[in-house]
């Protein structure tokens, strides 16, 4: 069995990949995908802590973290729907999905 540290390192590396994607890529769709990677990295560390904190009385993982992951997944699904709708609206107005071409705050 692996240690908690292995899961935390892997989670941190996945977060770094998502973070680098948000910093480096210029396509809105790819930036949204990188955001999903970052949210999933946070979910992985939450589930790892949930498994690590075994309740001594009942011998089950701490399910509070898993409920939190459930909420995170729901909010991420809502967020990606709204984000993609904004991307589609921008594409119809400007015919581009590059963030550098969309630098005006007000339309």
């Amino acid at each position, binding site marked *: 069995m692996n240690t908690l540290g292995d899961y935390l390192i892997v989670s941190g590396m996945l977060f770094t990949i998502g973070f680098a994607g948000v910093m480096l890529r210029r*396509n809105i769709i*790819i930036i949204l995908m990188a955001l999903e990677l970052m949210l999933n990295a946070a979910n992985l560390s939450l589930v790892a802590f949930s498994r690590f904190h075994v309740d001594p009385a009942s011998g089950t993982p701490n399910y509070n973290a898993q409920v939190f992951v459930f909420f995170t997944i729901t909010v991420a699904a809502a967020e990606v729907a709204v984000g993609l709708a904004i991307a589609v609206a921008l594409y119809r107005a400007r015919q581009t999905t590059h963030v550098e071409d969309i630098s005006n705050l007000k339309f």
Partner: protein
Amino acid sequence: MSPFLFWFFALLMLVFGAGVIINRNPVASALNLVVSFLALAALFMSLDAYFIGIIQILVYAGAVMVLFLFIIMLLDLHAEGLRRINWIASAGGIVVALAFLIQIFSVVSRFKLARQNFPPLAGSTIDDVHNIGRLLFASYNLPFQIIGVVVLVATIGVVVLSTRELR
């Protein structure tokens, strides 16, 4: 789960996660993201979180990825041409990401609990759907209803955004 399977799925997840941001073609990025999510679901199951693993496959690898592919198809995006790269901004992004990774490594290496193995569970089978459901509807009832409102608001927002014409 054996350490070999853990490292196999972790490597799969990281390699395909890197593929998401390296590929120039958005469709290839989306398909890389599917594989990354499936490997992540396997990691969740290695942590005995079967419900979360299944939800991960259903919601992310199913619904969210279909949404991404559908939008890519709708916008008819092609592989990006080579644009002139802003080297200062790119180098800054890489430096910040690497600094973050180094911080994670140093924090985890000093965290004593991180070197312990996971404690064993009581039974060989765990009833995690039952337990999460009880917790969700008993202790987290109000947040659960608020999350329903959030999803409703997101749905209405998407409908409003897609019908109104931006000028």
